[in-house]
């Protein structure tokens, strides 16, 4: 006999089957001696347990009995632990959203950096002349993806300008 049939016999004995199912079980029980034996055994066990189960009666109502147990449990938990737990519970409500927002913000920043959205920042350059005789000008060629610093001699530039000015003065 398989387990399903055993369970059906148990359910039949406990009155858990519908009328139709119960009739069906009765039909195959009539032709199955093994099933009948199991039903007898289960019935005997049920009556033995039912007849000998101690019946305890409480001196107070069920609600009052359980509320006493609850009070005892609450009294056993130290107060500071209870306070800590309630503080944690109040914070826990915000921890999830705050963590999610922080993670999304960091991922967004990371993506912006990786995907080159800070394009303008990439093109910024800091140029410093370290010699008093040299100066420089810088520009960027977008089409050639080239950043150029043109270094020139300040003294030479000045003397050329003076020469140009002198030439112009002579012409005038």
């Amino acid at each position: 006999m398989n387990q399903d049939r055993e369970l059906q016999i148990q359910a039949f004995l406990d009155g858990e089957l519908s009328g139709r199912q119960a009739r069906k079980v009765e039909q195959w029980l009539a032709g199955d001696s093994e099933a009948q034996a199991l039903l007898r055994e289960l019935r005997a066990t049920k009556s033995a347990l039912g007849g000998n189960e101690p019946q305890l009666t409480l001196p107070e109502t069920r609600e009052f009995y359980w509320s006493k147990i609850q009070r005892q449990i609450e009294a056993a938990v130290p107060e500071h632990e209870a306070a800590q737990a309630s503080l944690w519970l109040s914070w826990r409500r915000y921890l999830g959203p705050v963590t999610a927002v922080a993670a999304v913000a960091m991922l967004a920043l990371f993506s912006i950096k990786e995907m080159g959205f800070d394009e303008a920042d990439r093109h910024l350059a800091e140029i410093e002349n370290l010699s008093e005789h040299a100066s420089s000008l810088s520009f960027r060629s977008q089409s050639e993806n080239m950043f150029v610093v043109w270094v020139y001699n300040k003294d030479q530039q000045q003397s050329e300008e003076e020469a140009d000015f002198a030439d112009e003065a002579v012409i005038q």
Partner: protein
Amino acid sequence: MTTPRSLHTGLLRWCLLLLFWLAAVELRAEDLNIEAQLIWGTNAEKSPDASHKPVDKPTADKLKNVFKWKNYFLVKNVNVVVPSRSTKQIQLSKQCAVEITELPGPKVEVKLIGDHNPVMRGVKSLSKGESFVIAGDDKNETAWFVVIKQN
């Protein structure tokens, strides 16, 4: 059974792990593979120095599109690896050297040194395919170019 305290510790541990991971990704530093070229630009068809060879066509085309000179000759080409957050000096000629530093950002600092004296410094991010060119006039209407690229 999961108590609030163990739940708290577990969540905190995961949050810290996530933050450390993101910080590590953000702050990751890489070595720079730098190519530095000293190039001489002229309108003459040939360089007076036989050891100078014309630069490769893509570089020459780039320079021609930006500068006025017709021909560009390679004086020296150096490939170096600049370790993260450190500096490498590249000697390009007797008078000319560049000092390259890898900086956070990631950015590079390029310092031009002429005759053992610092001339200028520039700091900028250098993406792959981008050229950082430091240039200046030379004798007889010619010019020199220091082209720095990241490989």
